[in-house]
């Protein structure tokens, strides 16, 4: 049974500031639930839940979707890829702040998720991986028989 501490659902209508507060509150949540030792590896990831799925999101702008690899192996989800350097054939750089190279990040999924049914989408530089909850982990209504 997945054991996450859920905060309130995010409401985009409440605006950017409200969203930022909610995300910041979740900075306090322990990383060990996901087999992580904390921040410090690229790319930083955010984990959300809605009623059906666990949603893992990372910001990886400028990556060719072909180089993205999303793998699930048992309860481990691994996201990896390569970001090419800015083309610099006949140019000299005045500033070079953007990093390039390979990246890989693994996360331990809580129990009750179906890793084999995970789906990923990449849009505007953000990769979103949705892992559905197993049927039996979803809340079910149990009807009460009147005696």
């Amino acid at each position: 049974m997945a054991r996450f501490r859920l905060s309130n659902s995010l409401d985009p209508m409440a605006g950017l500031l409200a969203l930022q507060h909610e995300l910041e509150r979740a900075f306090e949540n322990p990383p060990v639930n996901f087999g992580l030792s904390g921040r410090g590896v690229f790319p930083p990831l955010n984990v959300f839940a809605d009623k059906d799925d666990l949603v893992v999101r990372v910001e990886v702008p400028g990556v060719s979707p072909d180089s993205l690899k999303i793998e699930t192996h048992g309860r481990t989800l691994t996201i990896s890829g390569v970001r090419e350097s800015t083309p610099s054939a006949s140019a000299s750089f005045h500033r070079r702040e953007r990093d390039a190279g390979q990246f890989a990040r693994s996360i331990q999924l809580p129990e009750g998720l179906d890793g084999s049914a995970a789906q990923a989408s990449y849009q505007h530089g953000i990769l979103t991986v949705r892992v559905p909850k197993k049927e039996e982990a979803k809340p079910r209504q149990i009807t009460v028989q009147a005696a």
Partner: protein
Amino acid sequence: MTPQEMTLREKQELGGEERTRPGRAYVPYIDIAESQDALWLWADMPGVDEQSMDVRLDNGVLTIEGHVTLKEYENLSPVYTEYNVGDFVRRLALSDDIDTERIKAKMANGVLELELPKTERAKPRQIPVTGA
């Protein structure tokens, strides 16, 4: 040769100015390169699409401002977070040598690419040498 590993960099918060839209903004990381004909700029702005991208030139100051869409956060509850989201803003002073009429902007996969062509007089010229 194996590519090197990417390193983690914190998002830089924009300081020192008030914005009309509440919420903190971030300063995008950029690359600037110069070729014979133009200056090129790339800015990382994940979550920004071309409609939400604003590129302005005012008195020699280039402002790039990208608004992030919040729709994809609908109905999600944060469980564990390592990064926050916000609009991106950066300002740069451009020299006179840019032909502002011909600036081209492209947005793909959360990266803004700007081509800032140099004016004719700013391009390097080869001076032919004649023999006596």
